């Protein structure tokens, strides 16, 4: 990508997003009403804060996702040269897969993959 196209992309992006915000601030008619900024859900006012503590399960899923995300990053270059390198590439990725596959099996066995 040459820098000219990047600059063009950047300017167009700034213009479109910024333009939309400016446009919507100035052009439409505005009517202010306290009910509009009220909570919308079922009409009942919330009690206390609406921030909830998340279940720890989310964290577990997120970190498992992240680990396999990183794994994908490494598999992608491998897939490109797989045919070219043949057997060597196969053995190398096999070791990689076996170790991480065992990790997945372990997570499964520990019931980390089901929602409690």
């Amino acid at each position, binding site marked *: 990508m040459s820098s000219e196209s990047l600059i063009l992309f950047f300017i167009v992006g700034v213009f479109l997003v910024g333009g939309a915000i400016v446009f919507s601030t100035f052009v439409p008619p505005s009517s202010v009403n306290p009910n509009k900024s009220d909570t919308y859900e079922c009409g009942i006012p919330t009690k206390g804060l609406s*921030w909830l503590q998340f279940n720890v399960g989310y964290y577990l899923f997120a970190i498992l996702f992240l*680990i396999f995300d990183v794994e994908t990053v*490494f598999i992608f270059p491998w897939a490109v040269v797989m045919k070219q390198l043949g057997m060597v590439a196969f053995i*190398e990725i096999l070791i990689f897969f076996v*170790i991480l596959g065992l990790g997945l099996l372990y997570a499964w066995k520990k019931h980390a993959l089901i929602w409690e």
Partner: protein
Amino acid sequence: MTGNQLMFAIFGMLIIIFSILTVTSRRILRSAVFLLFVLVSTAGLYFMLNYQFLAAVQLTVYAGGIVVLIIFSILLTSHISEKFEVVGMKKQIFSGLAAIAGIILTISTILQTEFKATEVAAKEVDMEAIGLSLLNYGENGFVLPFEVISILLLAAMIAAIVIAKKGKTQKP
């Protein structure tokens, strides 16, 4: 100023501004979002270097994965609407001075150095080159780190489960 320099300046400014906002914001969730902007701007730098793969990794792993993980962890801790307390004036001044002194020292040292810039034609680092050096076991090959990373990921997975899993394993 060429186009490249202009883009570099823009991305650099974005990174610096959002980095400062990340550490100075008093709401932790906002800090996480500012961090996201820092990471995305860094991806922009990689795009400028014509290193599409690294930029894509930066976007998927850092901006996509790690920030999500950070936000989940923030939401996991309960007192979320809490603001950090304002640090005392004395501490602010001293840490500010220390940071500025560090910045001046680092930048002046880097500016003094003449990096041996080798004149190479703008080279496209394509996937094939990356794959070949990743799986190469000779010099400048990275197959050993590649395999060790699988052990690191496995250990991270086990460690996360040990910390986060409830005591007794429940039957499904």
